[in-house]
């Protein structure tokens, strides 16, 4: 299978960044069609398409859409999670920079389907180029009656705002994102079933729909060409439909974003990215830093799909696929990953706040040459006690990769602990030691 450009189709043609160009390329026919449909029919179309959230969890999108009250008593909000922060992922950035209208159209259709009043695109502060592209597109959409009052002459009115974050990975987590949007520290909130779902009581205690940039960007295509058509993509997989953008980086010859149909072998993704550079393949983190690492033999057999990736004990995640060559010191990789989560833990829940720091301390002493016997077991135990014990999944995201590094490459940890130095001694590897 080759690349399948559905969402990235517009990215090759800068002309589509103007409204005229986007319309010429078929844009806004989805919205025109949706506005003539019943709201429920739009949601049903998304259901038929089999679309699952592209932000990391793979939750069926239509269930969220269907969860907002049909009898509206309070304003409804539509949020777009554009806080892309998962190390290894850079697809949302590209989608916003090169196909801003696609996202705006998707969010407008979503707004129509769930009776939304106001939409917010929460963009991480660093992504100023993406925000500029979106600003230009939103201004043009307002000027052409595609946003604002009585869109395209219907009785549907919808405002869309851009809100910039200020540097925090945790704000990508949906309840923390809502806290941040409301002007608080970006900390997560208690979840269902202990608290109502965001679709019932989200931002400002009002019904809220939240999806990822890529999820919304799929919507115009689903409505335009039909959910049934969309569901033919990836039909070879168990339960993954459509296309997925993978951000491929690390030691590959042609790093970049590659859109593929679900069901494509992971090996082919590596081929698209020009293969491994600087040596043989040693490890792959297929779905962003939170996802478990896999070895080359698993890369050879892995099929890209939400359930299929589970068979090699990893996950699709956000699609931040990193390949590492034979000169990579896995313990250093684990060390840097541990630091990332400790730095980004918001500090609200004790297991995550203390556990991530503890893992850093153990990793620090291992790479300083002072590893102790039993450190591997201790790391695993700490990770086990962080996993599933915090308000949001940052704790899980910190625990999974560490456990996987130890499970897949125990000999490298043992070597470090026993000899106090790296088992990888090539010239290339030494150049990378901080």
């Amino acid at each position: 299978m080759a690349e399948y450009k559905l969402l990235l189709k517009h990215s090759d043609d800068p002309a589509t960044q103007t409204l005229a160009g986007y319309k010429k390329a078929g844009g806004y026919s989805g919205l025109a069609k949706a506005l003539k449909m019943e709201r429920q029919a739009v949601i049903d179309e998304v259901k038929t398409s089999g679309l699952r959230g592209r932000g990391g969890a793979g939750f069926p999108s239509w269930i969220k859409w269907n969860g907002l009250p049909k009898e509206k008593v309070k304003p409804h909000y539509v949020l777009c999670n554009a806080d892309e922060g998962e190390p290894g992922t850079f697809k949302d950035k590209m989608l916003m920079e090169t196909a801003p209208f696609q996202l705006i159209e998707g969010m407008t259709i979503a707004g129509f389907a769930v009776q939304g009043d106001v939409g917010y695109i929460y963009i991480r502060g660093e992504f100023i180029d993406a925000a500029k592209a979106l600003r230009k597109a939103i201004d043009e959409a307002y000027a052409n009656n595609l946003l604002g009052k009585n869109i395209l002459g219907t009785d549907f009115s919808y405002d869309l705002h851009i809100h910039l974050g200020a540097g925090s990975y945790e704000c990508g987590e949906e309840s923390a994102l809502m806290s941040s949007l409301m002007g608080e520290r970006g900390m997560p909130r208690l979840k269902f079933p202990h608290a109502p779902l965001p679709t019932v009581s989200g931002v400002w205690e009002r019904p809220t729909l939240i999806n990822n940039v890529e999820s919304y960007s799929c919507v115009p295509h689903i409505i335009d060409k039909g959910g049934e058509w969309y569901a033919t993509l990836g039909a070879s997989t168990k339960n993954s439909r459509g296309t997925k953008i993978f951000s491929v980086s690390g030691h590959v010859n042609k790093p970049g974003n590659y859109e593929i149909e679900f069901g494509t072998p992971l090996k082919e993704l590596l081929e698209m990215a020009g293969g491994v550079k600087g040596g043989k393949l040693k490890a792959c983190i297929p779905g962003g830093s939170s996802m478990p690492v896999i070895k080359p033999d698993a890369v050879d057999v892995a099929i890209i799909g939400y359930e299929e990736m589970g068979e090699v004990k990893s996950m699709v995640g956000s699609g931040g696929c990193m390949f590492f060559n034979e000169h990579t010191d896995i313990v250093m990789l684990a060390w840097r990953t541990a630091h990332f989560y400790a730095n980004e833990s918001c500090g609200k829940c004790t297991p995550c706040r203390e556990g991530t720091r503890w893992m850093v301390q153990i990793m620090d002493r291992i790479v300083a040459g002072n590893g102790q016997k039993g450190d591997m077991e201790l790391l695993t135990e700490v990770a086990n006690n962080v996993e599933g014990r915090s308000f949001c999944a940052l704790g899980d995201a910190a625990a999974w990769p560490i456990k996987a590094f130890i499970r897949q490459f125990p000999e490298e940890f043992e070597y470090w602990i026993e000899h106090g130095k790296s088992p990888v001694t090539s010239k290339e590897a030494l150049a990378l030691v901080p």
Partner: protein
Amino acid sequence: MSELIQLGSHNERPMPPKADELNLRFSEQAIKELEGLKTHYPNLKACILPGLWIAQREYGGFLDGDAIAEVAHRLSRSYAEVQGVATFYSMYNTVHNPGKHKIEVCTCLSCHFNSAYRIRDYVSKKLGIKNGETTADGMFMLEEVECLNACDRAPVVQVGDRYFGPVDEKSIDALLEELRASEESTVVKMADQIVQVQLKAEERVGTIR
């Protein structure tokens, strides 16, 4: 303690001004912009983040006690609340004045294994400062940051509203040279651009560059 988690000296942390010493410095433009932003949200509290961006521009890139107090005052929030929010986010400069240009070197996974630490050490040596410090002339601050989500261009450096990558020693030299010669503070420019992109066409006072 890990170098990565270093936060700077707490002695430098700005203190709130006394109530009768409130020293308001927002320009006409800033006041108009804040009014525009207020219409985007159902309450004033939600304007704290956008308000802090305005303040970061108005106060030359550093949110000192006066800046925090002014945002709190203009949004009818308490000093403690606004400070609490500001200190949570890494892009608000609340610990010390970053200077004119913040050199943000990504050392996260993909960048790490594409020589990011070598780049960090090079910048550090060249400028004579450690991670989190600012040069004595107030020109540069060096900051190690987490994934900038441009890993296809690893190793990546961000300065204000511009991304650079893949960088090497030569391109770093050229970049520092260029920044040294420029009049404008990229820290202030970044804050300004972040304010501008959040405003609708009819609310915008400045320009998007």
